[in-house]
């Protein structure tokens, strides 16, 4: 009898041991992964620099990486970059906070109540289809060129991914687990906190990721249409002064900071959703 129990238990133990010994090599493996990811960009940059140096491409339209780096350094030293970046981040954060939390709130409401779904969802779906840029002139007409309209444009974009994913997350909870909650006599409150929210968390985090991305993208729209500060403003200045390097620095900043935000949410995903048993490639 006990022998049989051992037999059932052992294979699992073995995989556990393997995992723990593997964790010692984890950082090495991770470093390896990121190095593989760096090969392509590094090669492109090298070819690019070489082509610029050899005069194969016009450095006016496509400045070499070294030139971009130089201008990057200047902007850091003059403090110009830090000021504008912090303003941009504040705008994106404010827009994301407002749009994202409203999206979460309405997503929860519509997810939990069929009545709310029937009253609100069709309107939201209609509004979702209106592009940012189509709304921008109207928003500027209403709120002027100030901060309000910028935050509004960003919040408007951030709302929808959060709303849709929260809603979908709540509605995708396994019905069979509701039977379990019934048999275990979960209160309505526990049903929400112990069943629905954890089950919907993967979708909610996906909503956060997409919503952050849209906020960051919306920032460009908001800052390119009349603004006196921010990364989008720097790009505009670069266009007016024909300093292509500055445009490139702006684009790079958008890419790097955006990726950092995304990596942060993915870190949260890994920490909170490690229980998921899905294909990891």
């Amino acid at each position, binding site marked *: *009898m006990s022998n*049989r*129990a051992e*037999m*059932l*238990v052992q*294979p*699992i133990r073995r*995989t*556990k041991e393997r995992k723990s010994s593997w964790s010692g090599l984890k950082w090495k493996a991770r470093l390896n992964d990121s190095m593989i990811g760096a090969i392509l960009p590094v090669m492109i940059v090298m070819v690019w620099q070489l082509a610029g140096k050899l005069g194969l491409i016009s450095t006016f339209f496509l400045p070499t990486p070294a030139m971009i780096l130089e201008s990057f350094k200047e902007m850091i030293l003059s403090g110009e970059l830090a000021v504008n970046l912090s303003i941009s981040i504040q705008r994106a954060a404010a827009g994301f906070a407002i749009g994202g939390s409203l999206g979460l709130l309405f997503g929860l409401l519509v997810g939990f109540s069929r009545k709310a779904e029937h009253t609100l969802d069709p309107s939201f779906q209609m509004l979702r289809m209106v592009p940012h840029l189509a709304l921008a002139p109207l928003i500027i007409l209403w709120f002027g060129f100030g901060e309000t309209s910028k935050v509004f444009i960003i919040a408007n974009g951030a709302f929808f991914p959060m709303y849709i994913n929260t809603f979908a997350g709540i509605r995708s909870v396994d019905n*069979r*687990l509701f*039977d*379990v909650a*019934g*048999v*275990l*006599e*979960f*209160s309505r409150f*526990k049903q929400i906190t*112990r*069943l629905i929210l*954890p*089950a919907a*968390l993967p979708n909610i985090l996906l909503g956060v990721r997409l919503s952050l991305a849209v906020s960051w993208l919306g920032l460009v729209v908001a800052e390119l249409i009349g603004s006196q500060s921010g990364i989008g403003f720097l790009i505009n200045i670069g266009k007016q002064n024909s300093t292509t390097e500055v445009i490139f620095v702006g684009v790079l900043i958008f890419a790097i900071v955006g990726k950092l935000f995304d990596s942060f949410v993915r870190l949260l995903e890994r920490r909170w*959703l*490690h*229980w*998921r*048993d899905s294909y990891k490639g």
Partner: protein
Amino acid sequence: MSTLLDIRQLSKTFHSGKGSVSALQNINLAVKEGEFITVIGPSGCGKSTLLKIVAGLDVEYDGSVKLNDRDVTGPGIEKGFIFQEPRLFPWLTVEKNIAADLSLHKPEIRKKVDELIELVRLKGFEKSYPRELSGGMAQRVAIARALLRNPKVLLLDEPFGALDAFTRAHMQEVLLDIWQQNKTTMIFVTHDIDEAVFLANRIVILKPRPGTVQKIVPVELLFPRKKSSAAFQELRFKVIGEFEKIEELELVDNGAGI
């Protein structure tokens, strides 16, 4: 021992667009406290439906189902239910799955959870996640989760049906162990004759279309039972004999229909 569960004149009809199908008809069964009942029958005999009604998961029926003289009106912790699949919460560890909506920070819950982990032989796996468990282990977590609530009756719906033969035999012994230690009344639905004879004080044999009780066979073998013993085999043949009667009846019915 007093009667814990009293089922009288229970009938259940499924209505659909095409018409209605009688799933259960005039079921009468009284289950004593501490008894181990197995319910067996060919597929479509309504054995799962019967269990769902007792659990309160299905409340549209005719007749009466009383637990401790009170009508069953909905699901609840006094009627522990083990589904065919373990149905654990994938985001919770083993111990948190057992506690579910209760807090492990409460000393009395902590203590009972630890005892149950011992009882279902999962020591060392308290912090494991469901994806790390085998099917048999996951089902043992589900059993511990139901037992933590001190159910008056544990209802098991083909709980070992998806397990391989060795694991299934092991789980049957674990379940008997739990039953003997906790004295929990068990109603166990299965389609496996060996399993039904091995576990039961009484075997309820259902026949299909409509689901009615064909026979109730008492099993007076002492525990621990040996599946190879002559007495066990004799009972097994008796149950198989009842099944053959059901088949003959069905053949006659079909013949008359042609």
